[in-house]
């Protein structure tokens, strides 16, 4: 086996992939039944709760919404949630000793707004250290609640789009309120209940105690932060939120105490995204349609992982040239580039976590991406720049991938000279216009704010590492915020008015402006009739389509961002090869 690949890497990838594959069908089938209002094995327990919520909130279970009403409900729900979270943060000094035992002051205005926008958009970008800034009430009522609601919002948006693609001659794409309730009650609640108890069993704290002050054997004093961690940790991964209770996120032993929690956390990041893809195939009446998307996602995930792990395993040749530094993996140490990595996890698990967390819009980390080699760090950056369609954020990955699918059939249609069709419906100019707008929003958002940051001291003063690495830090920050990922490259001081405000706007654009044309596609497709497949119909349920889809994603992402990457991570790698490090 070459020096840049280990048996450990292959084994972990194989085990992870096998379990992910096995879960796709049961999870997808369950969600299909939930969102169609069918009975599930949990209905005897949860149906009374669901019906009670409808009665209390006066929601009509059978209501149908046109796409723009569905969107307006999402926007209204999110806007109110954002404002409430902002107010919770701005008033936390009055939370009392039970909910704020550390007596943290109110969160500063710009930081509070950035954090509220961050959690509303499922980004969980954090310009603060949770254990030193937020009260328990803010963590639970403001942040963890949003972890639920923003995840559910992403899932139901994908469900609405899938419904639009599956229906024929229909005016509505479902009810946002009904989908939201079903998602929270049947999907998130039971899964999080089990996952939270699992985490507590493994040693993750769940309490309201003040921080413990410990006296170490060397005589120094150590403050050990704790609190209601397990509940936030569970939704952090399952909902692909990523915002840690602690600043060190999943490298902190209280968030990720054992190898088993690490593996299960990784699995839960992809669990719902993978299941949703199967649900899509089931819903449109041909599971092969879902598997074609799943296969494209899996190939891109695997390529990203093996690229990241090989770059990290290969390490930094400047360090390797020192005779006393062991950079080749042995049975007792991982070798490679261990800077910024937890020794418990090593190269393989850090690369696996970095790949998965940025394939999805999770943003949880167990290693510092800033310390990856330049090309190793390019992998998470590229994953996010694709729009995180590789299983993706809960819901967001599927609706992003469906946008690429529509573009792929359009390109295939151009090649064979026929009107493109997808799922038996003609894809016409409106759908292509909407997909193109959605496609352009992300790069415009990322590149505009990155350019704005590098032309003035308001942005450049925050750079820790000068040169190409500094540009990578800024690109990573806005790519992460646009993609609602939330992982940080670190090294960039972003708790400033400039980064708090521009970052907040970038997150809102990346979430809601991007979603708008996609729901419009759902509404438009729902109104169409299906046409029988003909000789000119490009099949979208096989390997050829998966390959075309991968090509479209790679080409679009590459064409858009290669110039910027050439000045950032690629230039940094070339300079590293020439002996200069940043």
């Amino acid at each position: 086996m070459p020096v840049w690949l280990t048996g450990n890497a292959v084994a972990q990838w194989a085990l992870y992939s096998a379990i992910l594959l096995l879960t796709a069908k049961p999870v997808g089938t369950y969600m299909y039944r939930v969102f169609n209002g069918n009975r599930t094995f949990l209905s005897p327990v949860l149906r009374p709760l669901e019906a009670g919520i409808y009665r209390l909130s006066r929601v009509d279970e059978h209501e149908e919404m046109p796409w723009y009403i569905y969107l307006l409900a999402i926007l209204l729900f999110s806007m109110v949630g954002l404002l409430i979270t902002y107010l919770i943060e701005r008033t936390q000094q009055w939370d009392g000793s039970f909910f704020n035992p550390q007596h943290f002051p109110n969160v500063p205005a710009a930081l509070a707004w950035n954090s509220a926008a961050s959690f509303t958009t499922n980004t969980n970008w954090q310009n603060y250290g949770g254990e030193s800034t937020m009260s328990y009430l803010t963590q639970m009522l403001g942040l963890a609640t949003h972890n639920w609601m923003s995840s559910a919002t992403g899932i139901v948006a994908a469900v609405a789009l899938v419904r639009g693609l599956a229906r024929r001659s229909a005016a509505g794409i479902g009810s946002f309120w009904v989908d939201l309730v079903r998602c929270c009650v049947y999907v998130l609640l039971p899964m999080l209940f089990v996952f939270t108890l699992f985490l507590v069993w493994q040693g993750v704290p769940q309490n309201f105690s003040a921080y413990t002050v410990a006296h170490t054997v060397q005589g120094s004093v150590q403050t050990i932060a704790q609190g209601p961690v397990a509940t936030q940790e569970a939704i952090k991964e399952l909902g692909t939120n990523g915002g840690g209770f602690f600043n060190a996120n999943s490298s902190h032993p209280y968030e990720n105490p054992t190898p088993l929690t690490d593996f299960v956390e990784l699995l839960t990041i992809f669990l719902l995204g993978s299941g949703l893809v199967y649900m899509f195939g089931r819903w449109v009446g041909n599971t092969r349609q879902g598997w074609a998307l799943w296969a494209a996602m899996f190939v891109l995930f695997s390529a990203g992982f093996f690229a990241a792990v090989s770059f990290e395993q290969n390490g930094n040749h400047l360090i390797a040239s020192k005779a006393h530094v062991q950079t080749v993996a042995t049975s007792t140490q991982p070798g490679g580039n261990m800077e910024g990595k937890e020794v418990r996890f090593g190269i393989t698990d850090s690369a696996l976590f970095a790949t998965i967390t940025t394939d999805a819009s999770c943003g949880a980390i167990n290693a510092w991406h800033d310390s990856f080699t330049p090309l190793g760090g390019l992998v998470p950056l590229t994953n996010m720049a694709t729009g995180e369609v590789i299983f993706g954020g809960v819901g967001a990955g599927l609706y992003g991938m469906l946008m690429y699918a529509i573009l792929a059939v359009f390109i295939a249609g151009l090649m064979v000279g026929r009107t493109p069709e997808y799922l038996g419906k003609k894809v016409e100019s409106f759908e292509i216009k909407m997909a193109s707008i959605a496609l352009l929003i992300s790069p415009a958002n990322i590149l505009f704010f990155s350019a704005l940051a590098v032309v003035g001291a308001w942005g450049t003063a925050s750079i820790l590492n000068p040169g190409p690495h500094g540009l990578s830090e800024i690109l990573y920050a806005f790519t992460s915020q646009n993609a609602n990922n939330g992982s940080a490259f670190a090294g960039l001081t972003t708790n400033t008015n400039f980064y708090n405000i521009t970052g907040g706007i970038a997150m809102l654009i990346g979430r809601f402006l991007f979603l708008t044309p996609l729901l419009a596609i759902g509404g438009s497709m729902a109104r169409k009739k299906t046409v029988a497949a003909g000789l000119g119909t490009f099949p979208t349920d096989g390997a050829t389509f998966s390959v075309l889809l991968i090509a479209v994603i790679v080409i679009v992402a590459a064409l858009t961002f290669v110039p910027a990457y050439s000045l950032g991570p690629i230039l940094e790698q070339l300079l590293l090869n020439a002996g200069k490090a940043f």
Partner: protein
Amino acid sequence: MIDLLFIVLTLVFFAMNVAFAYGCNSLMGSKS
């Protein structure tokens, strides 16, 4: 005062998003 500014910023963003959605819907209505 600063709180009011951030509340207004939030309202302006969502109002713009609604206008964008209206534009998309108009485009759908105008298709042949």
